[in-house]
Each structure stands twice: as C-alpha cells, then as structure tokens.
C-alpha cells in the first residue's frame, strides 16, 4: 500500500503526512513552483480545485442532461432519479423558506449534490488515486475536496455573502445595521440612559457580529471536520495490513451515512440561514 514515491520504505507518520499533503502550486520569484508553498497565501491546492470542479461538472452534466430531456411525458429512469432529487430538495426548501426566490432552491440543489459528490470521493480506497497519480508523475494527491478547509470555507463564504445580501434586501441597509446593533439589548433612546447607549450598541454589535460570523465558520468547519476525520480514519485503517479489509468495509458503510448527512446538513443550514436573513422581525 505505501509505495507511491521512489523514496523507499515509509514510516507510518510519513505515510499519513503524505496523504494529507495537497498538490500545490504557487508563484515564487515570478516562477511557478510546485509543492514548496507552505504558508504562501497565494498558493493553489491543485488537487482540491481539480476534483471539486470535476465533480461540479459531473453534477452539471447529469442534471443538465435531464433538464434538456425534461418533458411532461413519461420520464426515463435517469430523469426520474433527477426529478426525485429535485423534488426532495424542493420540498425541503419549501418547508423552511416561505418567500419567493429563484435562487435558494437551485443553490440548495447545487450544494447538496456537489458536496455529496465531493464527500463520496472518501469512499474510494485512499491509495488508489494517489498511486495512479504517482505512476503518472503527480507526487501528492488529496482526492476528497471537502477535507480541504479552503474548499469548505470557499463555499461557506459564498453563503455568508448571500446572508448579508438577503438581510439587506429585505430590511435595507439601515435595517441590517439596526439588527447588528439594537439586539439583543435595546439601547435607551431618551433621558439619562442616552449616555449608556453607545456602550450597549457596541456590546450588541460585538455579540451580533460573532453570531453572524459563526454561521459560515460553523458551516464550513462542521463539514471539513467530519470529512477530515473520516478520511484520517480511512488512512489509519489503510496502515493495518490485511485487517484493513473488514475495518475499511465497516467504516465505509458507516461513512455512507456521514457523506449523505453532511451534504444534507450543509444544504439545510444554508437554507435556514438564508431564511433567517430574509425574515422580517
């Protein structure tokens, strides 16, 4: 199992560290450099990006194919499957979000299926793709994009901006600022209490900002943590020689649940956050 590179025998520590290393590229001294980018904020994790976009394209291809053939007539098997997924997302969104929006349901669909596909890469035995990569000269390959905190953060930041956008859209900029400063303690508006008002507003602002920022943070870290831990356990199991076979099977079966559940939670929380943002108080 552990024999990807030509450096001879690996220790367990090296094996794990190797598996957790992204294939990176960055610009150092106006030259493209591979894999010497530790700490460089301009580096790109090529493997995460490639797999993420690839899986997104698979999602697009499958669903676009069904959308092209969509008609009110008798659906094919693939179309029936796609429609089941869409119907499931649609009812989940409608249960939570009661407004009218052309964005939230497609957003939820994209998040659910895309994250599900990215999580599903976890079920491919941990050495297969890195070994193939090594055979064609790719030294590092991390195949599960959602075990890369950049990927989960990238998605939750998009959600974060949508939260702000929807807040401002329904309440206006004043309403949004009021929401950040006038809750949970209403500052006194007249009399001697006016002296205390700035302190109360500052306190409210700190509190509300934290709760606002906690949304994307918890969203991305929950997904990242679950998938990273799952991947790490797969790697540990892969170190166990022949005993990895039953253990890997058991963990993979359990992981099917986690893969689906985490995709669903990410989607559902996105919908809930956007619903909260677009509700009047």
């Amino acid at each position, binding site marked *: 199992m552990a024999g990807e590179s030509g450096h001879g025998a690996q220790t367990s520590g090296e094996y794990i560290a190797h598996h957790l290393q992204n294939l990176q590229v960055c610009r150092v001294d106006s030259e493209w450099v591979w894999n010497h980018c530790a700490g460089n904020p301009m*580096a790109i994790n090529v493997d995460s990006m490639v797999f993420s976009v690839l899986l997104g394209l698979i999602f697009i291809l499958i669903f676009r194919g069904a959308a092209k053939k969509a008609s009110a007539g008798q659906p094919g098997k693939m179309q029936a499957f796609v429609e089941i997924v869409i119907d499931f997302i649609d009812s989940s969104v409608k249960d939570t979000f009661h407004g009218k929006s052309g964005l939230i349901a497609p957003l939820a669909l*994209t998040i659910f299926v895309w994250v599900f596909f990215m999580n599903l890469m976890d079920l491919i035995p941990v050495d297969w793709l890195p070994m193939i990569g090594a055979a064609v000269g790719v030294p590092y390959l991390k195949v599960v994009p959602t075990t890369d905190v950049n990927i989960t953060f*990238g998605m939750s930041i998009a959600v974060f901006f949508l939260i702000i956008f929807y807040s401002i859209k329904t309440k206006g900029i004043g309403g949004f600022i009021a929401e950040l400063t006038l809750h949970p303690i209403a500052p006194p508006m007249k009399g001697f209490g006016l002296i205390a008002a700035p302190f109360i507003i500052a306190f409210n602002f700190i509190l509300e900002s934290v709760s606002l920022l906690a949304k994307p943070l918890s969203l991305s870290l929950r997904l990242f943590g679950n998938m990273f831990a799952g991947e790490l356990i797969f790697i540990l199991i892969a170190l166990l020689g022949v005993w990895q076979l039953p253990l890997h099977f058991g963990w993979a079966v359990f992981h099917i649940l986690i893969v689906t559940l985490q995709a669903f939670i990410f989607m559902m929380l996105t919908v809930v956050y956007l619903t909260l943002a677009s509700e009047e108080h």
Partner: protein
Amino acid sequence: MDINMTLLGQTIAMIVFVWFCMKFIWPPIMTAIEARQKEIADGLAAAERGQQSLGKAKAESDEIVDDARKQATQILDQAHARANEIVAEGKADGIKERERQLAAATAEVEQETNRAREELRGQVSAIAVASAEKILRREIDAEAHEDILSKLAAEL
C-alpha cells in the same frame, strides 16, 4: 491546511455552478415536473368522469334491456292469445262447415229420395193403371173412370 487562493477559486466555482443550475437546470425540470403533475391530476379527474359516465351508461343499458324483456314478454303473450283465438276460430269454422255440408248432403239425399219416390210412384201408378187397364179392358171404360184412376195414382 493553510488558507490560500483555493478558497477564492472554490467560491468562484461555486458561483458559476449555482448560476448555471439556477439558469439552465432548475427551471426546465421544475416546469416539467409541474406540467406532469397537472397532467396526472387532469388524467385522474378524466378517469373519474369516465367511470361516472360508464356507471350511468350501464344503468341506462340495464333499463333498456329490462324494457325490451318486458316488451318481448308482452309480445309473446299477445301472440299466444292470438294463436288460441285463431285455433278457436278455425275450430268454429270447421264445425260450421261440417254442419253446412251435412245439411247440404241431407237435403240432397232427401231430394234424391223424393225424386226416386216420385218416379217410383209414377211407375207404380203406370203399372197399376196398366194392370187395371188389362183387367178392366174387359169391364171398364178407362175414359169413364179417369177421375177414380188419377185419385188412386195420387194416393200412391
């Protein structure tokens, strides 16, 4: 594990995918699903209507068959009655004809008998006259006793 430009790349990728999904995937599929839902609802309603009209047609046809059966029975009864009537009429006619023929035959027989009797009488009277003539030729003038002789002949 560092935060780097992958984050931005993923955000851009996500915006692109969500935009594509919002533009080209969700609306056509949703439209198709809603159209099919409507079609199925319409179909079910039509099926129900069909069932109802089928029940109505069935009741109607049952009624028609019942009527026809009643009519048939009636016609049959009438036919029976008419047949009986015809047979009775025939019987009566037969009896009348028989009686008529019987009467005719009887009359003819009587006529014949009378004629024969008349003839016989003539002959007998002729014979009687002849015999009497033969007897009386010697004793009686036929002409003188004409009245007695004809009276005799009428009595025979």
